[in-house]
Every structure is written in structure tokens, then in C-alpha cells.
């Protein structure tokens, strides 16, 4: 029996492996854990934590299920007749070409056009497929920035970016600070300030990354603002990434203005514009891992395609979705119905919160509202801090049993804002959540209007 050969310790893992940049120490993830430990269930656990921190779209599954029911040939390995363009199981199983299934790329291009009401065309040959937007964003960062470079990102932004864009790439993020005074819109001054901050620290800004519609704000960016950003990236000679994964969830005016639309009227800037898309939000299919890098820069397309080898979309999934999305009637109907349902959910949520005395930023898109709880942090005479916000967040999580996302994890410059999702649960569950908010606010109001001791 051979004993342990040597008592030496194992070699350390890489710096990447041991750094904290995987981002899982933030409250964003702590909330998920609390939910996992005590998940709400109407029947078996009615006092459990309601998950309102997950931006999922569960309101339109029945439409997808209906399509599959009515088109069994799309479901099976029916072959070319199913519109999938792949002759058989064998061909599909063997298909690992990083160009992706042509019919699927055409279907994606067409779907992206429909979402934008035909205001921009998408060339299927510029569509590069990745396993989710997570991979798409990281891939673009590898391509556009060197280790030590930075991306300028307007706040508040999706907490996942801290991992997706920085962890393995060695690229950093410099926030472009936005404020409630103008509805958190990006300003040229804020862009310039961020650029200066990077330069002063000796870091090269490789580009600006926008999320439009915005996560977590739930708003679309105004055309004039987008033009300003375009002018800025031209002036600084840098790239612009537009993460448009919520583009199909714009449910109220103003219409989405996509970078794709602006590029049409400004072809000179095209080479610096790159769009990210995904089916995780609009179609509610996060499990299927479908992401898109769409670049107007040929060298980026070629490189992205090569790099997608690390993160291709399952050919089985490409085939299924090609059949679904090439059905024009279905795609249009889905987009329309999904929007209506999201609007209904959104309005229901905003009304419920208003009744509870909690205002939200006016939103027209996305799967969440940007809730304003600043009032609850005031009254101590000092300016509210992130610590105050986190105390409130903790209260919401452990007493009110709602997992909502604190604005500080989104790098919001003003404490007191929270992102609250409304599309990842049944209407009944949403009502339970709203009722809890209502009771909580009643208690709070009573407590804070008690006559003070003199």
C-alpha cells in the first residue's frame, strides 16, 4: 500500500481562479441564496421568499408551447420540411460549423428586424452565435480590449457585467455616473468625466457599453442621447457595444431606437458599432443558451466567429428555434402578444406599488421596475449611504421576504433604488408580493409618523 508520496501542498490555481472577480460575493447573489434556502410556494411554503431578483420572462411560454403543439414537424427530426433546413438527425448532430445553421441565422436576423419594426435590416452573415449573451459580451471584450484597458459603462448597470466583462479578460470597468435628476440618462459630461478618470489612471478606454433597453432601469434610450454617445465614441476613436437583449420587451412609448437604426443614417461610424442580442429575455429561453454578436466590422465578425468555437449554440437548439422563428406569422404574433402581457404586468406592478406609496422610475421596457425607496432612507439628517440601502435590502429580504436587487449592486450612484422583477412569477404570486409591500409600507409609515419623544 503506497502512502501519500510527498506531503507537499498542491500548486496554487491561477490568479483568475483565485480572484474574486467571479462576482459571487455580492448581495445580488446573496439574495439568490436566501431564496434557495426558503423559496416561496403558494401551497407548501406561503411565507417563503418571493424571487423578484431574477429577470426572467415567464409570461409567454404558452405561445411557444402552442407553436410546438401545432407544428409537430418542427418538434421531431422531420427534416427539411420542418423549415429547419437540416436534412436529418445525423446532419444536425454532426453540424458543428461555427458559422451556425444558415436557416437559424436567417431566422434570427428576421426576428431582430421584426422587433425593430423593420427600421433596420440585419445581415444573417454578420450574425455570430454564442452560448448566451454572457458569452457574447465576454467575447466582444476579448476582441476589442487588451488586458488593462477599460470599458465605460453607464450606471446603474447589470451586476453580471462585473464578472462577464472583467473576470477572464483582465479588462476593467469605469462607471459613467447617471442620476435620477434627469431620469438616469447618459450625458456627454458624464462620458467625458469617465474617460478622464480612465486616462488619469493610465488606462486606455477601449469602448462604451450601453444596455438599451436598460437593465435595471427598464427604459429605452432617447435618440438624441444615442447620437451623443455615437459622437463621443467617434471623437475618442473607440468602440460602442449596444447590448439590446431586452429589445423585444419594449411595451410602451417611446419606441426602441436601436443602434442598428442609427448606423443606417451614419455609415461612417458602423465599424465601431457592435450589437449583442439573446433569446433569454424576449423568448424566455435562458436555458437554451442563444446569444448573438452582431458587428458591422468585418474583422470583428471573423474573429468573433472563430472565438465562438468556445461557446457554440447546440445544433439541436438551433434547429428547433429556426423552425419557430422562420414562421413569420408566429414571430409577429409572439412579439405583439408578449409585449401586451409585459405591459399588463408592468402596469399592474406599478399600480400596486403606487397604492403602497412606493414610486418607480417611469419605464417602458424590460422585465422589472426601478423602484424608488429613497424616502425610507431619509430622516436621519445625514445623506443616505450604501450601508443604509443594504440595511433596507436586508430587511426586505429577511422580514418582508422579497428578494429584490439593491441599486448598489448595480453601481447606482444614489442609494435607495431597487430593481424588482415582475415577469418571472404568476400573477397570483405577484399579488402576494404587492400585498407584502403594502403591509410593510403601512407598518413603516405608522412607525415613522409616531409622535416623537421630546
Amino acid at each position, binding site marked *: 500500500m*503506497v502512502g*501519500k508520496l*510527498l506531503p507537499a501542498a*498542491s*500548486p496554487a*490555481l*491561477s490568479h483568475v*481562479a483565485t480572484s474574486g472577480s*467571479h462576482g459571487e460575493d455580492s448581495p445580488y447573489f446573496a439574495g439568490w441564496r436566501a431564496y434557495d434556502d426558503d423559496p416561496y410556494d403558494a401551497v407548501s411554503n406561503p411565507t417563503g421568499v418571493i424571487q423578484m431578483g431574477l429577470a426572467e420572462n*415567464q409570461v409567454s*411560454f404558452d405561445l*411557444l*408551447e402552442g407553436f*410546438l403543439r401545432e407544428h*409537430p414537424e*418542427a*418538434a*421531431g*427530426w422531420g427534416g427539411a420540411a420542418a423549415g429547419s433546413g437540416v436534412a436529418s*438527425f*445525423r446532419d*444536425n*448532430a*454532426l*453540424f458543428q460549423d461555427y458559422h451556425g445553421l444558415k436557416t437559424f441565422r436567417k431566422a434570427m436576423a428576421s426576428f431582430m428586424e421584426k422587433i425593430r419594426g423593420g427600421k433596420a435590416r440585419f445581415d444573417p452573415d454578420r450574425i455570430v452565435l454564442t*452560448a448566451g449573451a*454572457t*458569452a457574447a459580451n465576454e467575447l466582444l471584450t476579448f*476582441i*476589442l480590449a*487588451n488586458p488593462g*484597458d477599460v470599458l465605460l459603462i453607464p450606471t446603474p448597470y447589470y451586476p453580471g457585467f462585473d*464578472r*462577464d466583462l472583467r473576470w*477572464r479578460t483582465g479588462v476593467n470597468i469605469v462607471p459613467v455616473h447617471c442620476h435620477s435628476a434627469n431620469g438616469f440618462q447618459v450625458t456627454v459630461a458624464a462620458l467625458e468625466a469617465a474617460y478622464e478618470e480612465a486616462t488619469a489612471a493610465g488606462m486606455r478606454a*477601449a*469602448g462604451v457599453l450601453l444596455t438599451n433597453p436598460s437593465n435595471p432601469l427598464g427604459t429605452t434610450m432617447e435618440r438624441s442621447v444615442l447620437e451623443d454617445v455615437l459622437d463621443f465614441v*467617434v*471623437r475618442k*476613436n*473607440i468602440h460602442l457595444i449596444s447590448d439590446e437583449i431586452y429589445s423585444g420587451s419594449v411595451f410602451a412609448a417611446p419606441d426602441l431606437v436601436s443602434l442598428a437604426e442609427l448606423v443606417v443614417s451614419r455609415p461612417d461610424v458602423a*465599424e465601431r458599432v457592435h450589437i449583442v442580442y439573446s433569446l433569454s429575455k424576449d423568448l*424566455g*429561453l435562458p*436555458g*437554451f*443558451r442563444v446569444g448573438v454578436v452582431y458587428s458591422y*466590422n468585418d*474583422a470583428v465578425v471573423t474573429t468573433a466567429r*472563430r*472565438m465562438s*468555437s*468556445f*461557446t*457554440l*449554440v*447546440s*445544433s*439541436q437548439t438551433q434547429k*428547433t428555434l429556426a423552425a419557430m422563428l422562420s414562421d413569420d406569422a408566429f414571430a409577429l404574433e409572439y412579439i405583439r402578444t408578449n409585449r401586451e402581457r409585459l405591459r399588463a404586468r408592468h402596469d399592474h406592478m406599478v399600480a400596486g406599488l403606487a397604492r403602497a406609496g412606493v414610486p418607480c422610475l417611469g419605464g417602458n421596457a424590460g422585465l422589472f421596475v426601478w423602484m424608488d425607496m429613497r424616502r425610507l432612507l431619509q430622516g436621519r439628517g445625514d445623506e443616505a449611504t450604501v450601508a443604509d440601502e443594504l440595511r433596507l435590502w436586508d430587511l426586505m429580504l429577511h422580514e418582508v421576504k422579497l428578494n429584490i436587487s439593491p441599486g448598489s449592486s448595480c453601481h447606482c450612484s444614489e442609494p435607495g433604488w431597487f430593481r424588482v422583477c415582475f415577469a418571472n412569477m404568476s400573477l397570483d404570486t405577484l399579488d402576494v408580493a404587492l400585498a407584502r409591500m403594502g403591509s410593510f409600507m403601512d407598518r413603516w409609515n405608522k412607525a415613522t409618523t409616531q409622535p416623537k419623544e421630546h
Partner: protein
Amino acid sequence: MAGKPELLSRMAAGDGHGENSSYFDGWKAYDENPFDLHHNRGGVIQMGLAENQLSLDLIEEWSKAHPEASICTAEGASQFKRIANFQDYHGLPEFRQAMAQFMGQVRGWKATFDPDRVVMSGGATGAQETLAFCLANPGEAFLVPTPYYPGFDRDCCWRSGIKLLPIECHSSNDFRLTKEALVTAYESARSSGTVVKGVLITNPSNPLGTTTDRATLAMLATFATEHRVHLICDEIYAGSVFAKPEFVSIAEVVERDVPGADRDLIHIAYSLSKDFGLPGFRVGIVYSFNDAVVACARKMSSFGLVSSQTQHFLAKMLGDEAFMAMFLRESAARLAARNERFTAGLREVGIGCLRSNAGLFSWMDLRGMLRGEKTAEAELELWRVIVRNVKLNVSPGTSFHCREPGWFRVCHANMDDETMEVALDRIRLFVRQHQHQKAKAQRWAAKGHLHLSLQRHAGIASQYHALSSPMAALLSPRSPLVHAAS
């Protein structure tokens, strides 16, 4: 006026993507003129793609018989919402369970696998990259025995910034990895100031088509432990072993042969792309005995998760133990038959291959057909002839970093029987014409015509660029003869 943006990062602008290798040039020739049994019999036959197309019918039958495995059918529809919504990077529990069970099954139950150590990745490509990111820093190195799969240069190095350094192996002992070669490579790296973080082996080997023996695996596990370097075993061909000796996995060796080995150093990469012929499904697995690596790789899997639709399908299929047993048996039998037919066909014209018991290809010995000195240039020249004139996309050994020019990897599990016969016919014709040229040239030389330019015999030469060195295996020792037109 604004200029163009600093177009791309150094990573993107460089050639770390690996596509400038000759490995890919042949693919281009194929893409431009692909062989088709019925519509283009003069086209290039793809023999550079290691795919298993021999047993897909079995999987297709299974999937037709199990509509519940698809979430899109009436039988599977009730699972649609749950599966479509499932993006947890732990993966579907039933998928991990089935994968762990299958990995044990394919190793003849000689090792057991823990479902909680099964981590997904974007194919084996993603698995190798993930391990490189986890185990080494930019500039640090893994040692890899040559010849090795060209894709490793991209998979392991492109985005991670690590290096691969060769451990030279030679035909004199059938390219087996020796401790001497390993130590030499290790010391050479260290003396040049490179930090060696791991050793990467592929077992069964691509391109050799052989399995690593137990003693060598034990040697590696011991070496890793003594020198505190990681041991990464790419076992993606584990289910493609078709003859003795039986496959021995590193998992078995650390459990039974070297129980004192430091398990924190042992990592396995797996995939369903080869054994099952499902490269399109992008199923890569990182299996590590190191808890910290499992945790890190799992987080990284966010960048390359397996589609939940595919996980669900495979959970059902891999979990069907009886079907899996039948599939593995039948697939091995078909691979054996194909390998036997191909190597026998080559033997008819005196071409030898390394004796192989695994994989989807043969490691063909054409050293005797190289013109002049056995150099990489000579090999590439021969390769160009084979691609352009014989119209077979085979892969030159130098693209696998083989130190001995003249070896070629030839894939033959990615086509039907008839296509393989066409390929064999072409090879036999080519070799016979080469032999004919060589014999003719020898007669001329014997008559005192020492220097002949083939430009005077343009008709034949331009077709096949006749070569001077006789095939080592059959003909007389090398003699200075005819020089081919360039």
C-alpha cells in the same frame, strides 16, 4: 476627422486562432470541391475531420423510440417550461447524474464518478480552455506529448495566454511517452525560466489512435505529485476503443494504482463529440478531483453552458444503461471493422500505419515517400500533392507538432463504406504510380542517367510529382534519383 478605431485587441489581431496552420488549409480545399458519392466523385474526400459517423443510426433510432426525451414533442411538452427556463450552471441534476454514470460505464465500471464534480463547458474546446484559465497564469506552460491535436494551441492558449511546450515522442518506440522525455521537457522549460503548471495528455491519443498504458499513467500521476504540477487527461475518445489493450483511465489509476497521488492535481476533460458523433450538441465536461477547480470551472461554465434542451435529451439517453451498453459495443465493433478495412487496404500497397486500438483515424507512415531529406518541407510538399492531386484531405504530421516528418493522420470513421473504398482506390493508385516512377528512375540511374529533370517528362510529373526516396518499408534503401519538378 476621426480615424478608424484601434481596430482589435492584440489577442484578436494575432493568429492565436490557429487557422493559419496547414491543418486547416486542407479543409479549405475540401470546402471548395467536396466529394459526393453521387454528384461529385472527383471531389476532395474529407479525411481530416475526426468524426464518428458510423453509429448515428443507433442514436436516431433511440430518439425516435423515446419522444419524451425531446421537450418539443407531445410526450415531452410538459417539461418544456421547466427546461427552457433552467439556466443554473450546476446543470440539470439528472444530466449530471446520467453523465457521471455513463463515464463510469464507458470505463467498464473500473472507476466511479461523482455527479457533483461534473461541470459543463462549450464542448471539449471549452473544457480545455477552462482548465487552462483555472490552472495556469499567462506565460506559464503545460507540457504536451507530441504529436498532439492542433486545436490545443488555440483551445489552451489563445485567450488564456498560457503556453504549450512539447514532450518529444518518437516512432522508435511507437511514440510512447517516456519518463526521460517528460523529464527532459520539464527541465528544459524550467532552465529557460518558464513555469510549468501542468502536463496535458490525450488518452486515447489523437492522432496516434493508441491508448496509454497503466504504467505510463502511474508514472505521470507520480511525476505530477512529486513535482507539484497538474495532470490534465483529455479522455474524449474513451468510448472509441475497439481493440485490446483495454482503456485505462487516469481515474482508475489514481483510485487503484497510485492511491498516494495528490488528487488535487488530477483533471479529466470529456465530451460527447467523438464517442457519440454528436459534435453539434456541444457537450463538454470538466471533471476535476480538486474542489476549488470544480467550483471555479463551474462559475466559468456560464460562458459555455450546454443547452438545457440538449441536457434533457442526453440525461434520458445516457441514463438508458442498456442502450448505452449496446451502443458502446456496437460502435466499437464498427470502428474496429472500419479500421481493419482501411489499414488492410493500405497494406496492399505497402503502406503501414501505427498499430491502433482506438480513435477515428489512422496514423499513416509515408516517410518512405518523402522526396530527399525527411524534412517538414518535404512532408508538406507530399501533403500538397495528396490534397491537390490525389484529392484527399489528410492531415500532415507536422501540423500535430510531430518531430518526424512523413506521418499523416487519416480519418476514416466520417464516411460510408463506398466513400472509403474510393479513398483507398485513390491512395493505392497514387502509391503504385509512385512506385512505378521510382522503379523507372532506378533503371535510368542504373544506366548512368544520374540526373534527370522531370521537366522533360512533364506529363507524368505534373500529375504526381514523382518522388525520389523509396518507401522505407518495402523498397531498397534510398538512392539519389529523379528530382521532381517543383
